[in-house]
């Protein structure tokens, strides 16, 4: 496996950006911190140490007791007239203290007292107009500001008007900000895929450095994108990840590159590369291949190579990101060139997680076996501007 076009850290720009925020990025701790390297069990959080035994709808809901959790939707959409969009909606949950921790709550506790914080990121890549819009939310799980609800089989995650509702047969997403909004309905075309060993996705060299991780790898999507006062009907395909953990990352890991690709032959590929300080990749890097029938095949790190072909430097943060890749999976006969659909899809979340990462719509083209194949997807690149997501 080779990684080319390794980039500089960009730590200075992150520092500057964080200082613009109020007290430093909460996300540096919530999601992207090396603090997670400590043994979760010793800190009182639950640890992922084996198969997750997913059951739905139960496991669509949050998993308090684990430190970090997220629900992550991305997709590529198109209007009737062919105007193209990429979108992202992610809800993060972060548990501040373990249950039964040392700091006992006063009696009675204030209604504001909680152990859970929720943040949410929404982005819209207006590919035709070559612009990327983003918004964020941060709040505590109290007084109805942010949190989750269950009505029968339906799980609702909410954050001030933004919501993710997971019904047994469909998901609905809604996010709105000053510049853009979207309301989408997503229907899974395949059953959820449990990554790793029955959802137990190893992220390091010891058993507890792992997450529980499942995806809906292909969801048929329709809905409305609102932009500049106009409401545009859109259709397309989405990807959903749900992942939770307490301490998945090892010291020395500087970031990750994550790929989700939906190919024209109705198969999907998910890869994550854990990048190390020495420029190499962690052996825990892995992926999943989902065939057109929904059958998953686990991809160990030795099964694939990812070569960065090109780079893009963010004018805002100075971070240098790879911008196109060649992905080869010899076992499956896959040879793809993946390109970002818009260079600047950098997420700058000053007031919530306080980290900078690249999360964007991509296209793929190449061969699978002897047949030509195309694809669309999303790529997430972290640790290029200093911060480092815990999961993915």
């Amino acid at each position, binding site marked *: 496996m080779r990684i080319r076009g390794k980039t500089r850290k960009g730590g200075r720009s992150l*520092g500057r950006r*964080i200082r613009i*925020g*109020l*007290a*430093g*990025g*909460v996300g*540096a*701790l919530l999601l992207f*911190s090396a603090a997670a390297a400590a043994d979760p069990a010793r800190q009182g959080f639950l640890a992922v140490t084996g198969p997750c035994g997913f059951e739905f709808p139960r496991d669509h809901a949050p998993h308090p007791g684990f430190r970090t959790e997220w629900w992550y939707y991305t997709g590529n959409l198109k209007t009737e007239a062919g105007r193209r969009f990429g979108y992202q909606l992610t809800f993060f949950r972060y548990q*501040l*203290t373990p249950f039964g921790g040392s*700091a*006992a*709550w*006063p009696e*009675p*506790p*204030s*209604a*504001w*007292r*909680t152990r859970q*914080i929720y943040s949410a990121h929404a982005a819209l890549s207006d590919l035709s107009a070559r612009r990327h819009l983003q918004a964020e939310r*941060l*709040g*505590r799980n*109290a*007084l*109805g*500001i942010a949190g989750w609800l269950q009505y029968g089989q339906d799980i609702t995650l909410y954050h*001030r*008007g933004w919501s993710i509702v997971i019904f047994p047969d469909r998901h609905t997403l809604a996010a709105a900000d*000053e510049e853009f909004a979207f309301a989408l309905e997503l229907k899974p075309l395949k059953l959820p895929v449990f990554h790793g060993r029955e959802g137990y996705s190893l992220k390091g060299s010891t058993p507890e450095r792992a997450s529980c991780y499942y995806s809906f790898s292909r969801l048929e999507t329709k809905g409305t994108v609102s932009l500049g006062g106009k409401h545009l009907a859109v259709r397309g395909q989405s990807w959903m990840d749900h992942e939770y953990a307490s301490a998945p990352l090892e010291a020395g890991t500087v970031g990750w590159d994550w790929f989700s690709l939906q190919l024209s032959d109705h198969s999907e590929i998910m890869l994550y590369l854990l990048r190390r300080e020495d420029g190499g990749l962690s052996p825990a890097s892995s992926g999943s291949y989902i065939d057109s029938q929904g059958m998953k095949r686990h991809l160990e790190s030795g099964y694939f190579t990812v070569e960065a072909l090109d780079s893009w430097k963010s004018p805002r943060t100075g971070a240098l990101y790879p911008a196109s890749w060649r992905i080869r999976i010899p076992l499956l006969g896959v040879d793809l060139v993946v390109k970002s659909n818009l260079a600047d899809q950098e997420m700058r979340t000053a*007031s919530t997680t306080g980290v900078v990462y690249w999360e964007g719509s991509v296209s793929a083209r190449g061969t699978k076996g002897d047949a030509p194949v195309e694809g669309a997807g999303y790529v997430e690149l972290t640790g290029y501007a200093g911060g480092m997501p815990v999961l993915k």
Partner: protein
Amino acid sequence: MISFLRLFIAFSLRHAARHRGRTIAVVCGIALGAAVFTSVRLAVHASIASFTRSMDFFAGNADRVLVQPGGVLPEETLARFYTHPAVRDYTVLSTTYARKADAAAPPFLLIGIDPLLDRTFREWRLRGREAEAVEGWLDLLREPYTVLLSLPLARELGLAPGARLALEHTRRTADFRVAGLLEPSGLALVEGGRVGIVDIATFQELTGLYGKIDRIDLKFRRGVSAAEIEELARSLPQDLALHPPSAARESGVTMIRAYQLNLSVLSFASLFVGMFLVYSLVALNVAARRKELAILRALGAAPRTLFALFLSEGVLLGTLGWLAAIPLGAVLVRHLLEAVSRTISTLFVRVRVEDLELSAAEIAVSFAVTVVTSLLAAWQPAGEAMRVPPREAMDMVAPEERRRRSARFAALLALGCLAACGALLPLPPAGGVPLAGYLAVLLLFLGFALLSPFLLEHLASGLDGLLARLAGPPARLAGRAVRQGAVRTAVSVGALITAVALFTALVIMVHSFRRTVETWVRQTVSGELFVTAKLGQVNRFRFPIPEDIVEGLRRLDAAFDLVESRRWFLERGHFPYEFEAMGMETFFRHGDFLWLQGDPAAIRPRAARGEGVLVSEVFAARTGLRPGDRFEARIEGSLVDLPILGVVRDYRTDGGIVFYSHAHFRERFHDPRWSGVRFFFREPPADPEAELSRLRRAILERWGDRLDLVGGRELREAVLRIFDETFAVTTVLLLIALAVAALGIATTLTVLVLERSRQLNTILAVGGSPRQIRSMIFWEAAFLVVTGEGAGLACGVLLSGMLIEVINRQSFGWTFLYTVDWPSLGLSLPLIFGAALGAALPAVRAAFRQPPAALLRQR
């Protein structure tokens, strides 16, 4: 321009240098006035700046602030904005005062926020590396009873991050951990940097204000229309108010402004007295140099050149005076700053001035006022110089007749001024500022100053025969000299009149005020022991005494009567006032109000029966409500609508107060809680001190950690001490005005003597003894001082009435019972007389500085 400068240097500067004594005296006088004026303005400005800065840091970048006037918001109100289309962001904020337990340190401001929601509203940052800083503020959410302290506060309390801090509040004392220190910026600079930040959950758990928040801050979506905001405001419950974030700041600043104006006017008085000095010196220069002026004119100098020369003298004196004021002001302002900020905190809004902030605008204003004042003072004599005819170069005698006309003309002008003054008095204030009143005061001073030549002439001629018999020729000669120099000396006499009038008026006003406050304190602030919830006063009685303690207090001691009270701080428009429900019936058994309107005998039983409210004089003045009108207010969700029964005097704060029977308030509005209670002896005991300490002990033993106690006598003494401290500033201003006036007398007499040194030496040469001449100068001084002091006293009595009935009423809304402090006046007026006569000594010495022969030879 250059030729004018050369002329100015040759003609004016050289002359000033030659007579440097009098120039220095005048510059000193202006310097005193300018120093007082500048330092008062700077001190008030610093207080206002500190207050507005605090309010701005609080306001953050919110577009609107939602509050419940006089109360707290239910926190569920927040949910209205989660999905409101007009609202982009929202956050909450609550504040209270708390203090380190068992410490002498004063309470500090504890701010409760949601650190997550607040991120886009206000700036606050933790010290230390980023990761530590994040940990620090996340600890606020993670761990109950954690606090972030501002750096100065942490230093004051000797605490470092991680230290434990026992924090005392009304309900309880809680053990806090210092999670971090705040960088000195944004929210950490509020209240002069004495702040702590806690999570809103901790705030509620400490204060017991569960489910309640002080305010919600809102930020609107970009491009939101005024109509949408209006719509949002209309959709809110009636008892809530949606203000711009600057509203609290503006109402606070408006209150301080009135105080600033009053102090400015008072401090301007010193400058005003200094103006007389400039006038007298420039007028003297014009008078003494008429010959030279005539020669200049004869040589072709234009009248406006001469005018400009003397105006420039005035400007120069003003500038030098202002420059000399700098070191003096630097010392003075430090002392004033503390006094002024304490007064503002006592009367208006809590301010904490960390450091003096030099305001360029204030410095520019003080410079402009000083120079313009001096310029105006030089205007009339400069005009006189312009009119000197060239032919006077050949004349030998001064135009005496003109002077007589001048005296009569001045007297006519004086009458005009006094009439205008009378006409201005009934006018209402402009925007809460008694502008007409101040103008009337200025006209009164001017009127009396203009009257002085007339008075001098008539006094001198009226006493001519009598003095000749009593004191012989020196007194008679002095009388004539005064008559002849009436117009010129009038200026110094005018200065003395102004200073004495100010002195008299302020002595009367402060005395009347103090006597009224004493009576009020004795009658209304009566009681043996005052008990409030811990930190009740500083937290404006937001946290009532817990109900278990109320029950305990009721059953405590049969020897005492209890008068309970419940207080709310409310607003009517932008006018802040207090609503106090008190145990009226019991109160009337032991104390009384100072009644202003209404028949006390008839109103007392009605008030005790809860038939209506009593309002303070300030409340009535500010709201225009009178007995018979209805008082309406929303208090914690209840609509209170009651008739006003009477108006009483109250001097607790600058705001107004409305009193109502607590028993009936409880019945009607279901609020049984107490903000405080006072104890009265039911029957006078044999040993009141012992009884009182027994009561104190009993309360302290049971609830000492949750209640604040203050003895009635201590409280009454404290009220009067605060009063005296407040007026200490006034006294300083007064003494400085008097010092400037004394300087004026010294200058004038010296000038008069120097001018007539030939005449005096001629008397000496023809056989008059030095003693006789000294006696003559003494009598001249006596004429001036008697006239100045007599007219000043009359002017002062008038002025005191104006200050009490117009300026005070219009500025603050209160008046007081008029009482003249005869002992103080009786003691100080002779002292002033003595001091003013003492000021004549340099003149006497100056008379014989040159040998008579040399002087006589000069011509």
